C-alpha cells in the first residue's frame, strides 16, 4: 500500500467520523429539553473534533515512523558499507550504489530466494528491464540491498498498521466522548490556534535550520582556513584542485568580493533611489486616482520579472550598447567593458526601482493628510509641501525602505553573475569588471562536488557572511520603520 493510499484511507475515516459524530451530536441535541440543559457546541464542531481526532494523531505517527525507518535503513547501509571500505569518499560512493541496487530490486520485484547472488547478475537483470546500475558494485552489496528492502517492508507494515489503528481508535474515542456539554467548539478553536502557531514556527525553524546548516559547514571551513585570512585577505584565488587530490593551497580573501558587492550595490542604489523616490512622490502626491491605478501596477510589473531576464538583458543588450557607446564617445577606445560594475549596477537599479518606489510610496501615503492640508492651507505649493513637510516626516521610513532595498541589491545573484564578470579584484573604475560574493558562491558550487574541500566549503562561509550582512540591514531597517510608525499613532 503506498503512502498516498494510507493518507486517503485516514482522511476517509476522518470524513466518516465527522459525519457520524455530527449526527450523534444532532440526535443528542434534539433529544433534550433546552429549558433544562443547553447544548454547548453546534453539531458541526463535534464533527470537526472527531475528524481531527481521527486524522491528526494518526498522520503524525505515520510521519514519525516513516522518518525513523528511513534513518534506521540509512544507518544500516552506512555501517555495513564502512565495514568493507574505510575511505570515506569511496564509501559514500558505495552507499549510493547500494541504494540504487535496492531500488532496482524493488522495481524488479525480487526478494528472498529470487535475489541474485552476484552484483554482475543483478546488473544484467536490471539492464534487461531498462534500469542502469553502476559498474563498480561488489557482491556483498546485493544481500545488503535485499536485507534493507526486507527491513523496509517490515517497517512499512508496522507504520501503516499503527496509523490505521490509531485513526480508528481516535474516531471511536471522539465519537464516544460526545456529550451535550462537551466544549467541542473551544477544543476545535485550540486546534486551529495550534496549527496557526505551527505554521509560523515553520518559518522561524527554517531560518534557524538554514543558519545552523551553514554554520556547521562554515566552522568546517574555518578549521582549514584561518578566519583572519578570509575576512581580511585581499586576494581571491581559490585554485580549484583536481577531484580527489586535497591539500592544494588557495587564497580566500573576502575583501575583493565584498568590495565588488558593495560597489555594484552602490551604483544600483545611485540609480534606483532618485528614480524610485521621484516615482513614489509622483504616485503618492500628484497622480490622480485613475493614473495611479494604472501606473502603479505597471511599475510593479518590473518587480515581477525574474532577475535572470534582467541579467540576459544586461549581457545581450545593455552591455554591448555601453561598450559601443563609450567607443563612439572616446573615439575608438571603449572605456566601458561589456561586463562592468556600471552595467550590472544600472540593470540592478532598474530592477530595484519598483522596490524603492512601492516601499516609499507606502511610507509617503502614510503621512497624514492633515500634514498636507496644513501646509497647503498656509499657501505652500505642492512641491514645497513635499520637500519641507512630507519628506522630512517620512524620512525615517524612507531610510528604512532604502536599507531594505540595499539588502536586496547585496543579495542579488543572477544579474551580477551575467553582467558583472568573474574577475575578483580590488578596483575603483566602475567601467571595469568586478565580481561579487554571490557570483563566487555560484562559481564555487557549480559542478558535481563533494563538500569536503576548502574550495567548496568557502561557499558556506561566503553565504553566511552575506546572510549576516543582509540580516543586519533588514533588522535595522525594520527597527527604523517601526519606530517611525509609532510617531503617528
Amino acid at each position: 500500500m503506498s503512502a498516498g493510499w494510507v493518507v486517503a484511507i485516514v482522511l476517509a475515516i476522518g470524513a466518516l467520523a465527522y459525519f457520524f459524530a455530527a449526527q450523534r451530536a444532532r440526535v443528542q441535541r434534539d433529544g433534550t429539553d433546552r429549558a433544562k440543559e443547553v447544548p454547548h457546541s453546534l453539531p458541526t464542531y463535534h464533527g470537526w473534533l472527531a475528524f481531527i481526532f481521527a486524522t491528526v494523531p494518526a498522520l503524525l505517527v505515520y510521519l514519525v515512523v516513516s522518518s525513523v525507518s528511513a534513518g534506521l535503513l540509512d544507518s544500516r547501509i552506512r555501517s555495513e558499507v564502512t565495514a568493507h571500505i574505510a575511505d570515506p569518499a569511496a564509501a559514500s560512493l558505495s552507499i549510493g550504489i547500494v541504494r540504487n541496487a535496492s531500488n532496482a530490486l524493488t522495481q524488479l520485484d525480487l526478494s528472498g530466494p529470487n535475489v541474485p547472488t552476484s552484483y554482475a547478475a543483478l546488473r544484467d537483470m536490471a539492464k534487461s528491464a531498462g534500469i542502469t546500475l553502476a559498474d563498480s558494485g561488489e557482491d556483498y552489496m546485493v544481500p545488503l540491498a535485499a536485507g534493507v528492502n526486507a527491513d523496509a517492508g517490515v517497517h512499512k507494515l508496522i507504520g501503516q498498521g499503527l496509523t490505521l489503528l490509531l485513526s480508528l481508535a481516535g474516531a471511536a474515542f471522539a465519537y464516544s466522548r460526545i456529550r451535550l456539554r462537551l466544549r467541542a467548539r473551544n477544543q476545535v478553536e485550540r486546534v486551529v490556534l495550534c496549527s496557526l502557531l505551527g505554521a509560523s514556527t515553520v518559518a522561524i525553524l527554517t531560518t534557524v535550520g538554514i543558519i545552523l546548516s551553514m554554520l556547521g559547514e562554515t566552522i568546517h571551513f574555518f578549521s582549514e582556513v584561518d578566519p583572519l585570512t578570509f575576512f581580511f585577505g585581499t586576494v581571491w584565488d581559490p585554485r580549484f584542485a583536481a577531484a580527489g587530490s586535497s591539500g592544494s593551497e588557495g587564497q580566500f580573501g573576502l575583501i575583493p568580493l565584498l568590495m565588488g558587492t558593495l560597489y555594484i550595490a552602490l551604483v544600483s542604489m545611485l540609480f534606483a533611489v532618485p528614480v524610485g523616490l521621484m516615482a513614489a512622490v509622483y504616485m503618492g502626491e500628484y497622480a490622480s486616482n485613475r493614473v495611479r491605478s494604472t501606473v502603479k501596477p505597471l511599475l510593479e510589473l518590473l518587480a515581477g520579472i525574474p532577475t535572470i531576464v534582467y541579467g540576459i538583458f544586461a549581457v545581450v543588450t545593455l552591455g554591448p550598447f555601453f561598450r559601443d557607446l563609450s567607443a563612439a564617445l572616446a573615439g575608438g577606445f571603449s572605456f566601458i567593458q561589456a561586463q562592468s560594475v556600471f552595467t550590472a549596477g544600472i540593470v540592478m537599479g532598474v530592477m530595484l526601482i519598483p522596490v524603492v518606489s512601492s516601499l516609499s510610496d507606502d511610507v509617503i501615503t502614510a503621512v497624514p493628510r492633515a500634514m498636507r492640508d496644513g501646509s497647503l492651507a498656509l499657501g505652500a505649493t505642492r512641491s514645497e509641501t513635499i520637500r519641507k513637510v512630507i519628506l522630512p516626516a517620512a524620512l525615517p521610513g524612507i531610510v528604512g525602505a532604502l536599507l531594505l532595498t540595499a539588502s536586496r541589491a547585496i543579495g542579488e545573484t543572477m544579474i551580477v553573475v551575467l553582467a558583472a564578470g568573474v574577475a575578483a579584484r580590488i578596483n575603483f573604475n566602475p567601467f571595469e569588471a568586478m565580481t561579487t560574493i554571490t557570483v563566487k558562491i555560484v562559481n564555487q558550487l557549480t559542478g558535481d562536488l563533494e563538500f569536503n574541500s576548502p574550495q567548496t566549503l568557502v561557499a558556506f562561509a561566503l553565504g553566511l557572511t552575506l546572510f549576516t550582512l543582509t540580516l543586519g540591514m533588514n533588522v535595522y531597517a525594520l527597527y527604523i520603520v517601526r519606530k517611525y510608525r509609532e510617531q503617528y499613532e
Partner: protein
Amino acid sequence: MSLESAATIAAPVSRPNAPPKMQGEKVGVFYGEKQALFDVDLKIEQFNVTSLIGPSGCGKSTFLRSLNRMNDTIDGCRVVGKITLDHDDIYDPAIDVVELRARVGMVFQKPNPFPKSIYENVAYGPKIHGIARNKADLDEIVHSSLRRAGLWNEVKDRLQEPGTGLSGGQQQRLCIARAIATKPEVLLMDEPCSALDPIATAVIEELIDELRENFTIVIVTHSMQQAARVSQKTAFFHLGKLIEEGKTEDIFTNPKNKQTQDYITGRIG
C-alpha cells in the same frame, strides 16, 4: 466718552456700507455626482467674526473650504457659482491658488502641527512667502505670532522642541500662531475648539476676539454659546442650504426661520 459708547466700540463693527471682504454668490459644491452645497449667498464682512452653524453634514466645512479653495485638494470635488475676495473671483483661472491661500489662512478642527520644532512650525509660512527679511525679522514674527496666539509664555523656553510634543490646546494655539504668522487677511477656522477642554476653549475664544482687530474671521462651530460669544454674524446651514444669516444677536434672539429656531433651541441637530 460715555460707558455706553465704550461698549459699542467692543461690539460688532458693523459698517453696513463697507464692501464685504469675501462674498459667495450661488455657491454650489459637488463631490462627484453628489451635490453637498446649494446656491449659497453669503457676505463675509471685514474685521468681523462670522460663524457658520448647523447640524452635522450640512456643508459648513464644505463651504469653509471653498473659501480658500482647499476643496481643490479633494478628488472629484467641484465648485460652481462665484466667490470673491475683495471683488476678485477666486475661482478665476488667472488667480494664483497658492497666493490666495496665503491671504486666506485656515485652522483645522484637529490640531495638525508639523513634526518640526515649535519655532519652525511658526516660521514655515513666513519663510515660504519671504515675509521676513532676515533672521531677526523672522524671530520677531515668530515671537509676536506666538504672543498673539497666547502661547508665548508657555513655550518661550522651548522653541526648539517639537511642536507635536505640546498638549492638544497648545497645539491648536500653535496652529493659530502658524496661520497668523503668514499675515493672512481672512482666517478660516473649522471647529477649532472641538478637541479642547473648556479652559483652552476660553483662551481661544478670547484670542479670536482679539484677532478680529486685524483679521476677518470665519468660524465653524457646533456650540451655540460659542457662536453667540465670539461672532458678530451668524449663518445657519441645513442640508446643504443656507437657511438664514444675519447679526448674531438677531439670529439667536429673533430667528425669522422656523428651522433656525428649532436648531438653536435644540430641536434639530
